[in-house]
């Protein structure tokens, strides 16, 4: 999984491979990393159509503007580090929006290190992080 700060808009993003029911077809997308999004992944309607995603359900959510509403969910697969993960992706209805949004749930198995100063992001599985931080002093603050 490649994570980076997009030089065009300055936002943190991740590159993901997504697939649906369309045979042998994977699409590589870049998704905005949004810590205010508690779901896993939201995809523009055109991406969902392109991969042949199957409608699986509907959810209720509260949007950033305070409005509550419903969001259609589609079953897709996301390939992260060679593994296919089943994800219920929300549909972004607005066809003007072309960018996917990756939320907290998608990254729950990872520890993220975001270096705002040098514009770098790294996702590390917890077991690898423990190895990396083995030599951190005992008084290192977790906060």
């Amino acid at each position, binding site marked *: 999984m490649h994570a980076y700060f997009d030089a065009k808009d300055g936002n943190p993003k991740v590159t993901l491979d997504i697939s649906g029911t369309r045979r042998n077809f994977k699409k590589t997308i870049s998704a905005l990393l*949004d810590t205010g*999004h508690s779901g896993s992944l939201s995809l523009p309607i055109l991406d969902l159509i392109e991969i042949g995603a199957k409608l699986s*359900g509907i959810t209720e*959510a509260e949007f950033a503007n305070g409005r509550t509403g*419903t969001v259609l969910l589609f079953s897709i697969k996301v390939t992260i580090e060679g593994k296919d993960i089943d994800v219920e992706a929300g549909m972004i209805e607005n*066809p003007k929006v072309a*960018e996917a949004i990756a939320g907290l749930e998608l990254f729950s198995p990872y520890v993220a290190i975001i270096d705002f100063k040098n514009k770098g992001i790294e996702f590390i599985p917890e077991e690898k992080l423990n190895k990396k931080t083995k030599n951190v002093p005992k008084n290192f603050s977790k906060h």
Partner: protein
Amino acid sequence: MPENKTQQNLDQLIQKARGIFAELQNSEDIKSNEGKYIAIEVISGKHFIADTRDEAVKKAKIKFPDRLVFVRRIGGLEKASRHLASPVLFDYARLF
């Protein structure tokens, strides 16, 4: 013998699922699972609780693979992202 009940339209599904959730809201099952997710299959009325939205839907799909399910967070609603909301599709005809 296969069930003869047809899939409901989305509005009916949402209304029925909200009704089922409202009935469940005071149950111990719901009270003790605040912050988790519930997936409701409205035709059977069955519900499935899990830590994440994806897991809740997955549990429901094992039992009902071809049914649409309604899923929501127990307690406060799930927070959706900034440009997920689409109150009006100004320049476009609706696709659905």
